């Protein structure tokens, strides 16, 4: 258990970031690359999302009808699927780093991981389900 959890991650670097895990392939190498690639993608997706809704549309003018109108276009639903998938998986892997750093007892680590993974993955599933099954006609008529 502990060997499996402590061995493969790259060492923390003094100026920030982590050494790329050594060895060819494996989950830790994949996760190291995933954090960097999803991070770059998220800069575009998340900053666009924040600027659009907070600065251009404005929270004050936001309501369910605004979102329903926006989601009528499948491209924006796809944008949101991409945004929540990259954001939640990037965040979940970051949470995993923190859990492995701070929770030393193997039993507690399993429990905390189980809770956090379940919460984040259920959130992701609910978000993707909502975006893919969304039907504007039903919602606008059903008010």
């Amino acid at each position: 258990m502990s060997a499996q959890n402590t061995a493969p991650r790259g060492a923390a670097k003094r100026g920030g970031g982590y050494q790329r895990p050594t060895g060819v392939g494996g989950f830790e190498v994949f996760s190291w690359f995933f954090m960097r690639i999803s991070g770059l993608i998220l800069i575009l997706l998340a900053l666009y999302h924040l600027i659009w809704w907070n600065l251009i549309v404005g929270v004050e003018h936001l309501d369910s009808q605004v979102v329903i109108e926006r989601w009528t276009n499948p491209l924006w639903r796809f944008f949101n699927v991409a945004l929540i998938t990259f954001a939640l998986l990037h965040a979940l892997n970051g949470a995993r780093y923190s859990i492995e750093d701070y929770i030393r007892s193997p039993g507690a680590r399993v429990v905390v991981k189980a809770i956090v993974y379940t919460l984040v993955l259920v959130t992701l599933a609910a978000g993707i389900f909502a975006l893919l099954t969304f039907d504007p006609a039903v919602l606008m008529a059903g008010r």
Partner: protein
Amino acid sequence: MSSVRNISVGSALRYRGREGMWTWLLHRVTGLGILLFLVVHVLDTAALVWSPSFYDHALAIYKSPLFRFAELLIFFSVLFHAANGVRIIIQDFRPIAMRHQRRFAWGVTAFTILAIIPVAWVMLGPIFGLRGEPGTARHAERCLSEPNAPACLKVTP
């Protein structure tokens, strides 16, 4: 592989890791903060599909002055996390950049502060009566030409 040490928060904060340590810590804190917000935000937005009126109730909370500060904090966290993430990526793939990592850390800090000032003005200005809500002119213009667009029907939670 790993050493377990129990050190107090006080001595941890006196550890002189300088810019590298502080940006590392802020990267972690902002990341975990964003995750917490994301879970709430994705769930309440997903609820739109089941109950638009529930979503409107949740939005009423987001519109309250207290939450405007929280939203600005999220904006700040994303800006810092993004800028510091770019710094980490550059240092990873161009190791020579490690020579200037302290200067880069200050650059990231300066960028975040400079970028958050106009954002704070737009997001917090209205709650102090310093400026109108962002998007008001855009909304009014649009609803003048398309009064029956869904976004122009007034919803009261």
